[in-house]
């Protein structure tokens, strides 16, 4: 029983992170029908920006939690700006072009960011400083949950609820949903679609930066190829939930986190990724549009 609860806690923590990152993939896909391959790398860029804040100012005797909060604010702002710039430079000129041109541009952006991180912060694994957050650990029914885990789960839930409310219950959220359904019709209704697209490249990367920094604080390390590993998992989560579907990304993230946590107990870790991909392919074959997506399979 204790290990079961422990796996649930681990799964929810990682699942929350996946969900935060998955939202960025799914929102961009919803509006532009583009897989933003650079999203995972943007998130990890957020982790590195946060790391620089955390390790740079440590000598100043700042209290840990305030410093962590500051790191989050700076990372979120920096990555939002990067996200908007990415859209403006790499995706906007290709909106009317062949879809594959945008895919290759996204792959190029991913390489650019990943290797930019390597050039700035070096190719080695960077360790996050310890002692910034309370080391408290609670014990519940034979399982333990740390302060960081509680923080990740609560913040993820709050952010997702806020996003859900924003998209479903505000004027601008309605505009986002309208642009996702039909850009031309949305334009005819007086919606500034360019602003909607820019906003998606603010919200997604902002949530992703939080997720990236969570990864750093949870695993206490960051390295430049991390964007591929975690980005891919988050992306799979978005697809499992039904890409383009916001609640789907949340559901997919949590499910994938739980699945990975439980699989880790039974499957050798060297096969872990293969299991995740096998699950993905199985889901695509049974429900090509994900758990919550509409059916859009090609009839061949």
């Amino acid at each position: 029983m204790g290990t079961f609860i422990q796996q649930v806690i681990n799964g929810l923590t990682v699942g929350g992170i996946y969900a935060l990152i998955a939202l960025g993939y799914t929102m961009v896909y919803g509006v532009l029908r583009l897989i933003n391959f650079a999203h995972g790398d943007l998130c990890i860029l957020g982790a590195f920006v946060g790391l620089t804040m955390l390790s740079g100012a440590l000598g100043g005797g700042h209290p840990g939690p305030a410093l962590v909060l500051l790191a989050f604010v700076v990372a979120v702002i920096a990555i939002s700006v990067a996200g908007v710039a990415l859209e403006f430079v790499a995706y906007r000129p290709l909106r009317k072009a062949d879809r594959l041109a945008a895919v290759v541009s996204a792959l190029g952006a991913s390489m650019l960011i990943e290797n930019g991180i390597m050039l700035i912060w070096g190719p080695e694994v960077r360790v996050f400083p310890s002692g910034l957050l309370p080391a408290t650990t609670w014990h519940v029914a034979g399982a333990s949950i740390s302060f960081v885990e509680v923080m990740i789960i609560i913040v993820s839930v709050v952010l997702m609820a806020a996003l859900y409310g924003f998209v479903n219950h505000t004027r601008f959220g309605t505009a986002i949903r309208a642009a996702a359904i039909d850009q031309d019709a949305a334009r005819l209704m007086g919606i500034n679609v360019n602003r909607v697209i820019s906003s998606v490249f603010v919200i997604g990367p902002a949530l992703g930066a939080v997720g990236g920094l969570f990864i750093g604080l949870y695993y206490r390390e960051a390295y430049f190829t991390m964007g591929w590993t975690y980005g891919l998992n988050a992306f799979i989560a978005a697809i499992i939930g039904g890409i383009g579907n916001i609640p789907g990304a949340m559901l997919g993230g949590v499910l994938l986190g739980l699945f990975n946590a439980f699989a880790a107990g039974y499957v050798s870790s060297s096969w872990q990724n293969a299991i995740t991909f096998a699950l993905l392919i199985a889901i695509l074959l049974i429900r090509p549009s994900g758990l919550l997506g509409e059916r859009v399979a090609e009839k061949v």
Partner: protein
Amino acid sequence: MMRRTLPTAAIGAVLWAGCLALPIFLDSAWISIAAIFAIYAIVALSQDVVLGRAGLYDMGHAVYFGIGAYATAVLNVGFGWPILATLPVAIVGAALVGAVFAAPIIRLRGDYLLVATIGLNAIFVLAMRNDLGGLTGGSDGIPGLGVPSLFGLQIESQSALFWFDWVLLGVVLLVMRNLDRCELGRALRYLKQDQLAASTLGVDARRTKILAFALGAGLAGLAGTLFAVQISTVSPSSFVFTESVTLFAIVIVGGQGSIPGVLLGTALMFVVPQIFREFAQYRYFIFGIAMIAVMVLRPQGLWPRARLAR
């Protein structure tokens, strides 16, 4: 149609024949780069069959390249087969695996197919790393491949390997050229333009696409054998996702369905980095910028396919 494409093909044939003389002028390092160009050109052309001509978003094409290389390495090192005897196995094996993978996933819509093939690539690399069946040698791969011998002639020197690779590239180029004129190529072109209309004209979309996938995979398997012979070691790191991305990008950057475009793309993505070895650290950073720049400035590719008269 003949009048428009013949001159380019003739120029291409002359260029290819001219390139055969390269080993006379180049030193051995350059000969090996030129040989590797031929190998990657074959893989890139095979990716073009699947992506550019059939319009199937395959982002795991390095798998079939890898299957060919591993088939040759396992049969040669593990079972003592002569290299040339492994060649048909590499081609047919890769084609079969391609067809078997493609059959269930081919009905997925573009982006979903892309994701499924990324998944297949990750599973393939993990399987090789984890020493599947005790045959693939784990992360270090399989070293010490033999030398192909043709009619008792050992293809051992770098120049001999170069000719071996370039002759096969010539064969593949011929196949690609004929693909445009044969039934399969025509069916693929119609399917890409309008699947519904093609289906009503009696084109079996599913069968045609699986056939294209098998053809692309088989050609990649052929290149896999050449690759294994060229570097005489086969390891998982040569067939990772990044390789698939590069192949995918070559076709889009060069120009879908365009033979000169794909060759130009191959030269840019695989040969130029060899020249700037000392800047290896910046390689992918610059690659990234170049990929964005080319797409933004020339979304149709550097050397797009000439419009064929229908």
